[in-house]
């Protein structure tokens, strides 16, 4: 739902064409991969159906006909609610990595290697993010920081788990 909410948020600044929305989105959030135009229209269609936005008019340019979309009152309310609701923290018990470690321990494989490889990968991407943030502008910087802090949290978990592997092994194999 969050992508649709992003589109809704962008429309709160004023009515816009689908193409404009893609451009603005890419500018702010699209560093990883640019948005497909189709994704935007899919989201817009869903929002229209829920009555959160409406078509504010059509413009006839030299190209095809372009619709302008505007946020509705219920759209504003919905956006407000979304912004005010915290994201459910991801339960680490369900994380893939945990699953992998437990599977490795169950199978008697070197679980430490799983963690080490993961740590290495984490560090690598952190280095990459750090490089990007030092070269980029403030927006880039903030986004990278966000990712970095998350990766760091994972990394802490990795280190802690590595330190407790023996404990975990006895527990899992009981």
């Amino acid at each position, binding site marked *: 739902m969050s992508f649709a909410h992003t589109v809704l948020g962008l429309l709160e600044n004023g009515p816009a064409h689908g193409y404009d929305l893609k451009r603005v989105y890419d500018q702010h959030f699209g560093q990883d991969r640019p948005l497909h135009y189709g994704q935007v229209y899919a989201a817009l269609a869903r929002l229209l159906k829920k009555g959160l936005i409406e078509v504010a008019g059509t413009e006839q340019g030299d190209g095809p006909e372009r619709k302008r979309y505007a946020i509705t009152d219920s759209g504003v309310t919905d956006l407000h609610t979304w912004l005010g609701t915290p994201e459910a923290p991801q339960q680490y018990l369900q994380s893939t990595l945990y699953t992998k470690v437990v599977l490795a321990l169950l199978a008697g494989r070197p679980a430490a290697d799983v963690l080490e490889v993961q740590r290495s990968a984490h560090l690598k991407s*952190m280095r990459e993010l*750090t490089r990007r943030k030092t070269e980029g502008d403030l927006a880039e910087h903030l986004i990278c920081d966000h990712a970095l802090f998350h*990766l760091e949290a994972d990394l802490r978990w990795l280190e802690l788990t590595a330190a407790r592997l023996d404990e975990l092994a006895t527990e899992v194999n009981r």
Partner: protein
Amino acid sequence: MSAAGTEAPPPAADEALGGTLLAARGLAKSFGPTTALERASFDIDPGEMVAVMGASGSGKTTLLHCLGGIIAPDRGWILYEGRDLGAMSESERSGLRCGDFGFLFQSGGLVPELSCLENTALPLRLNGVGRRTADARARERLESLDVDGTAHQRPGEVSGGEYQRVSLARALVAEPAILFADEPTGALDSLNEEKVMRLLVDAARRSNTAVVLVTHEARVAAYADREVTVRDGRTRDLAPGAAG
């Protein structure tokens, strides 16, 4: 420092370890019953920045002290530009630390009675640079680290972030070939940590200074080109392909 022991003696200077600036093999160091280092190895190229990571108590600081010539390892050898640190006299090592190496520690280290400018100029003056020249260069350094406002303040009167930046200025003012930094941001908040790290990286890159960055924080280590992890006194190189 003794190069004797199980390790091979240091290679002759001309059989060069490639372009390696500083190389160490088989370092071991014990403090009484505590073994702080055991068969640790390390390499760093000119201008390279290597993070030394590891849990607290794993021997990072001991490794840094050995590499920087502050303490002598019980076993193993360290070559700096082909010169064996273990074969040097204490005063030669002192001279090396004063000229070719720079040091940055977690906290403290600025002489409390000297102004920040005088602190920064200290290494230059120890190297025989005249007072005026030393002050001018120190001031430039402080400016480049954006702390020239503290020039006439005492270290006790500046904030933690400024303190570390002045310390950084002092460590870099003599343009060392290697900067040894031990948890340089350990006492700082995230914002100041970032400021100091970016300035450190910038300055090191600009002057092609190699950096040995000891830290237990991944966020800080991520500024480096690669990591070396110390675990129970042994080093593990995490750089892909170089892993041992």
